[in-house]
């Protein structure tokens, strides 16, 4: 009897697993194919820079399909590849999401991105193209570029923003003024 219970339980698990797999397979078949007609190519593959540098690169989005795309959105993403650099994307690029519109068959759109290397370390940037709503939830898979690798060395400016004369000069001026006043008072 005990063995029968175990057998029934094993049978039930097997039936449930098969049902689940077939359901997943059915879901999979409803998803759009991963073979996208869109390709994203970056103008640079590697950048060596120092902190505070600003550079630009372009991304070419080509539609190699036979039909035009829905309106698209391009997003620039950053990720630390050295495992230690803290990357806040907002600091690295102020405009990271750009509307692209539709791209006709066999057509190409180009976007220019500006990046500021904020911290030292190894950071990768890549561009993701995704359909604008409402197509976002339905068809058109995402298209992703290859990664642009940034190797950033630390650079400290002695006079950041031209503030050095003020930050040194003003306390000095005040010290001289107050000191001078005291000396004058001593003799007058």
């Amino acid at each position, binding site marked *: 009897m005990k063995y029968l219970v175990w057998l029934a339980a094993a049978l039930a698990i097997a039936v449930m697993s098969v049902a689940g797999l077939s359901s997943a397979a059915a879901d999979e078949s409803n998803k759009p194919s991963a073979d996208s007609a869109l390709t994203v190519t970056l103008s640079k593959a590697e950048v060596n820079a120092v902190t505070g540098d600003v550079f630009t690169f372009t991304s070419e989005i080509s539609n190699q399909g036979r039909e035009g795309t829905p309106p698209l959105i391009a997003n620039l993403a950053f990720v630390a590849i050295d495992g230690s650099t803290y990357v806040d994307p907002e*600091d690295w690029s102020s405009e990271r999401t750009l509307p692209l519109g539709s791209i006709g068959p066999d057509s190409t759109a180009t976007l220019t991105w500006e990046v500021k290397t*904020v911290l030292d370390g190894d950071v990768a940037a890549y561009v993701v193209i995704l359909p604008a709503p409402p197509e976002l939830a339905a068809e058109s898979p995402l298209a992703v570029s290859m990664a642009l690798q940034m190797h950033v060395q630390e650079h400290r400016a002695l006079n*950041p923003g031209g503030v050095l004369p003020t*930050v040194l000069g003003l*306390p000095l001026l005040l010290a001289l003024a107050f000191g001078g006043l005291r000396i004058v*008072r001593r003799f007058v």
Partner: protein
Amino acid sequence: MTTLAQGEAARPSAVEPPVEANGGWPVVAGQELRDIWLSARGPAIVLGSSLLLSVLTYLAASSEDLNIIDQRDTVNLVAQITMALAVAVGLLFTADCLSGERERETLESLLLTPVPRRQIALGKYLAAVSMWPVLLVVAVPYLWVLRQGEGVFADAILATSLIGTLLVVGFASLGLLISIFSASNRLSLAVSFFIFVLLLAPTQLPLSGWFGDLIIQINPMTAGSTFLQRVIVKEHAWGDELHLLIAPILWALVVSAAAFIAAGRLRLQGTLGR
């Protein structure tokens, strides 16, 4: 510390100050101003504040140069530090002004002068708040070098002047009020500084929800700080944030009225901490 001429202090009829005497406060204020500005006290505070702002500005500019902090944030930071510094200095000066005289046993001679007590308090109060315009002027070059455009600079100067004036008036009055009743200088300074820290602390907390909104609205420090942040950093129109001026205005009016009403009852012995 105010010390008047021997002849003035020795008048026998000066125990109860004459009501018609209206010219006493400029004498007291003048003496206090000399005491602050011609001694090392005022200049040292101004120089210290300048050094602090220099370090802050340099660090902020370094971060800003690397895009970590937005320029508007750095302007706001310098404006807020200047304001908090001026409020603390004004508060501590007034907290010391009468309880200090009491502790140094010089209050008696001051009370014996033919100057009404409110005018003594007014003279000392005005001298204490004289730090604020000087500290603001010292902050102007730092705000100028950190500015992003003319708009942010003008907004920063005007908003800081307005909020700073309201808060300095309110907190200096609070210090005066506590000093009037404090038997010892230590008590007066401790209570004043405790209240200052208590009201300043929420500006560093992430306030959200209805309770957070309530704290922002009713605490003059958080209201003033939020006003500056919204005007300077978020570029909100002044008209949209006028509700944040209610607490600083009420604070300045109510506490200064209370302080000058209480100043009429200034006594040789303090009632708190005896």
